[in-house]
């Protein structure tokens, strides 16, 4: 379409949230869908992703690795099973959903960006950016946050993450493999409450998919302080501040 400005879909909420510095509105804020943008914080901080019902349906392999992680934790051998605690490596998906600090959600240019206060981490959900040629082969390597593809179902942002590294954990103990698939359904249950309904699948580690829900409350807008997890660890403080 040449140099014409492609008109992106705008929602009233996003326009209000994305007004340029001292200027007018923006052509780049997205929406048509509910505006999830804002600053959020987990309601009930927890290191554990609790199933909605019953215990986690481990396979034998999943149970074995889980028990091994418990023993390593008891021994304080964190680097052998949890490089987030020992090295500040990205917690990945879905564990980032449990970070105790605030995060922002931006929905711009077809991408939903989770902009975490913790260690300045990010996680992105691609809602509308066409796949580009992988000129540097980066797609060949599993990553902590994998690749999240999203779409809107009414008022709900549905994200499916695959391609994650097996070096992350589901939470502080629960393991998974390369075949992890995490489906998340994000929606506002009221203007100030965000719900993330999470479904975890990995046939090698779980005998069936299992669900969990994490809830967040909207926070006042803020410029986050520069959080450097490695500085905390170097000072012998926990990777996740209390």
């Amino acid at each position, binding site marked *: 379409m040449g140099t014409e400005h492609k008109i992106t879909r705008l929602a009233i909420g996003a326009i209000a949230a994305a007004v340029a510095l001292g200027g007018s509105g923006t052509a780049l804020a997205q929406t048509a869908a509910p505006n999830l943008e804002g600053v959020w914080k987990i309601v009930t901080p927890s290191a554990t992703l609790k199933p909605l019902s019953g215990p986690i349906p481990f396979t034998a392999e999943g149970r074995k690795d889980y028990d091994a992680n418990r023993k390593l934790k008891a021994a304080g051998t964190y680097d052998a099973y949890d490089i987030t605690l020992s090295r500040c*490596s990205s917690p990945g998906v879905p564990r980032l959903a449990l970070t105790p600090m605030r995060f922002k959600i931006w929905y*711009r240019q077809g991408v939903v960006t989770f902009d975490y206060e913790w260690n300045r981490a990010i996680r992105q959900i691609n809602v509308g950016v066409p796949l580009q040629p992988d000129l540097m082969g980066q797609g060949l390597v599993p990553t902590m946050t994998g690749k999240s593809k999203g779409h809107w179902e009414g008022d709900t942002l549905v994200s499916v993450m695959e391609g994650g590294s097996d070096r992350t954990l589901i939470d502080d103990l629960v393991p998974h493999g390369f075949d992890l698939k995490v489906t998340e359904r994000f929606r506002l249950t009221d203007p100030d409450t965000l719900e993330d309904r999470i479904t975890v699948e990995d046939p090698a580690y779980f005998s069936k998919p299992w669900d969990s829900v994490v809830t967040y409350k909207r926070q006042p807008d803020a410029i986050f302080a520069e959080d450097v997890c490695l500085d905390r660890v170097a000072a012998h403080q926990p990777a996740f501040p209390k």
Partner: protein
Amino acid sequence: MTRRIPFSTWQMALAVTLTVMPTLASSQAGPPPGAPQGPPPGLQLPPGASGGPPPGAPPPVELTPAQKIVAALPPPGPGGLPPRPPLPADAVMPSADPRDLQGTWVHDKALEFRNQKDMYGALLPYTMEGAKVLSRRVNSLKVGKPFINASAICRPPGAPWQHDLNFPFQVIQTRDYAEFIFEEYHGRWHIALDGTRTPLPAGAPYMGRSVAHWDGGTLVVETSDFKQALWLDVDGTPFSASGKLVQRIRKVSDGGAVPYLEIVTTVIDPTYYTAPWSMIRSFAWAPHQAVFAEYNCEEQVGDPSVRGDAGLVPEPKD
């Protein structure tokens, strides 16, 4: 066990480029500090000219003792631009509002390993202390014992280093602040608008504290209060923690072409420079690169099986 290349080193290898890029003309209202008076030095005479230079030729530049030290250093390493997918024909375009800088951008010129000249082509006005620090760093490369810097240990390297890398970043704006989210180093550059209701947090961050105001269509950012000194580039052009950066950021439209983002950075640092000097960078519009590659340097920096400092050595203290 396979020995992995430290992540930061790998990333830097991708960012390797050719030598010094040609300076760009500044079309800003009022030049940044350091603009020379009269024609630029090093004016070339036309082939076959004789009888001396035509009237108005500048006198030969007299180097200061500090500049002589810097001029004698080995030249910076070469490199090239990493491959980048082309902008799709149907790509969303930047806002027409000059005060809306939002979107995804990527440095579109070869990375300068070392800022040898300012945006006007003049040699940098080093103090003897500045020349000493740069010499030490360049010579450490020459002898194969490069020094540790923020990048090597997975710490925020500062805005100039961050945006100079040929990797995308996203600019977000709200009513009260702008936020640059960089693909690399978990980079965040928060810029509070002067008089904002959303103030900067207390403390001195690695990235410094940035406050801005609009001058027409240019966002003028003043950044100071750094946690530690910065390396302005890969070779270690120095900048002290007490220095100040003034960044002039604007969109430039070349007669119907896709606009690009321009950042002119003025370095004000009496510790290392006798006068302010400025560098200019341009950034291509890249909405198709809005989905970033993951950057997770902590995984390898903390790996007991690899050198967390990427084999670099601590820099001597002055």
